[in-house]
């Protein structure tokens, strides 16, 4: 029989390799974040500031790719076919929302749906992949891959602990996720780009700077204003879309069945 028709046996070496990759990715991410927060490098545009920018960019990207490699071989085929749909939804729904001048990004709906249906590993992988694919059209998003992974991871965690069993819990989980994502992503915006990429968000950062805040503090405060609201709306929309799925579809995901993600809610 062809080896392709057999389920591959997981060896302890593969398992260990995956764990080491996940640990390495997490350690790099946490170490970079703590280093930046503790040292708060100044002079971001001159001297060693260029090194800080390159180091932050590389560390966040490498951490995201390591986390992706740790979970990729673990994903079921049903999750793998769902991820491209989620990536396309991120882009298409994000563009549609952007075209009607609503002051939200809503560019992670697909990632959150995957997190809700397939768990935190799949959600994190979708976040990283979404950023990698989107970077072919917008290269500046590349160092935000770790933040996107965190969105998917937190969506999966929220679903696992019952955030979808009551509709009002989803935006609350989104609010908490938004705070964490904003805090993790702000060093990238500060030390790689020297601020934000939008005029509105730039004005908010400038306002905080004029009040005496450091650049990192101003960007973090701006992120804490924008991200929680955005993620609350994204989590709510994603939850409503998951509720609208037929039960045979949502129930086909082992994560949904195992953790009773939808509780007693029964779709048609």
């Amino acid at each position: 029989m062809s080896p392709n028709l057999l389920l591959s046996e997981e060896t302890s070496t593969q398992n260990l390799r995956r764990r080491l990759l996940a640990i390495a990715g997490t350690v790099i991410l946490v170490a970079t974040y703590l280093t930046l927060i503790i040292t708060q490098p100044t002079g971001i545009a001159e001297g060693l500031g260029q090194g800080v920018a390159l180091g932050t960019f590389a560390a966040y990207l490498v951490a995201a790719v390591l986390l992706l490699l740790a979970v990729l071989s673990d994903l079921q085929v049903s999750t793998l076919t769902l991820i491209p749909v989620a990536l396309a939804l991120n882009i298409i729904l994000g563009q549609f929302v952007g075209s009607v001048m609503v002051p939200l990004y809503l560019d992670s709906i697909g990632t959150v749906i995957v997190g809700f249906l397939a768990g935190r590993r799949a959600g994190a992988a979708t976040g990283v992949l979404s950023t990698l694919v989107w970077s072919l059209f917008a290269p500046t998003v590349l160092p935000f891959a770790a933040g996107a992974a965190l969105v998917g991871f937190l969506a999966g965690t929220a679903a696992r602990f019952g955030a979808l069993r009551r509709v009002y819990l989803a935006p609350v989980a989104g609010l908490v996720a938004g705070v964490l994502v904003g805090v993790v992503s702000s060093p990238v915006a500060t030390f790689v780009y020297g601020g934000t990429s939008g005029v509105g968000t730039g004005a908010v950062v400038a306002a905080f700077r004029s009040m005496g805040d450091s650049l990192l503090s101003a960007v973090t405060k701006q992120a804490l204003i924008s991200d929680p609201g955005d993620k609350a709306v994204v989590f709510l929309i994603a939850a409503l879309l998951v509720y609208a799925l037929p039960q045979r579809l949502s129930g086909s995901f082992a994560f949904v069945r195992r953790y009773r993600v939808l509780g007693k809610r029964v779709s048609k």
Partner: protein
Amino acid sequence: MPRTIHLHPFTILAVAVAVVSTTTAASQWWLSCAVLGLCLLISGWAGQLKKLSVLSGAMLLPTLLSLLLIHGLVSRDNSPAIAQWGPVRVTVHGLEVALSLGLRTAVLVVVGLLCGLLIDKHQLVAAIDLSPVPPQLGYLLAATHFLLPQMGEKQRRIGEAQTLRRVGTGKGVTGWFQRVRLRAVPLVLASMQDAQDRAVHLSARGFPAIGTRTRLRTVPDSSAQRAIRWIAIVVAVLGPVLILVLAQLGSKS
């Protein structure tokens, strides 16, 4: 008619990474401008100048305005102000910082977008499949690339159908939310049903395949290109370190 470039996609990506990292580390306005000029020349040769200019402009304009607001108008350094009005304080140093950060971002955006325009997506997928990375990655990239236009078209048709039904035409926030719901729900449901159907077929065919895979599409490669890739990777890693060390030594002496 856009020209295609007959290089291995990884060669283009490796050179781009080396160029961006060394230019960022050097932080010299003339070098950044030279790289940007070269990118525009290459895009002109490839017949992609207009596309590159429009895409880059759309991304860089708000970024530059934002940096001017943050660093140019609310400068907090000790140098003398050239204009001051309430909390707004403009200094030469602040404007220099905004310009320097803007150029740094411009190099990343223009080089990155040029890569996206020059690389043939089919070749990139084939190159990933032939490389030692997990086969799932090639599938995900290829599937997303081909799904995007399909789902864009599906969304357009759903919008047309809803307009024909004369629903989702309301104004204000309620109208916007209704439009989002009427477009998003059918799009998500149909796309997820398609994904589930594909999963069954892929599982039946033993995806992801283990062992070596045969691909009909070959990716042009040569020993010279392999050498260029290695050199580019070494330059991307060691170049910035060398530049920063020399800059530090120069500033101390």
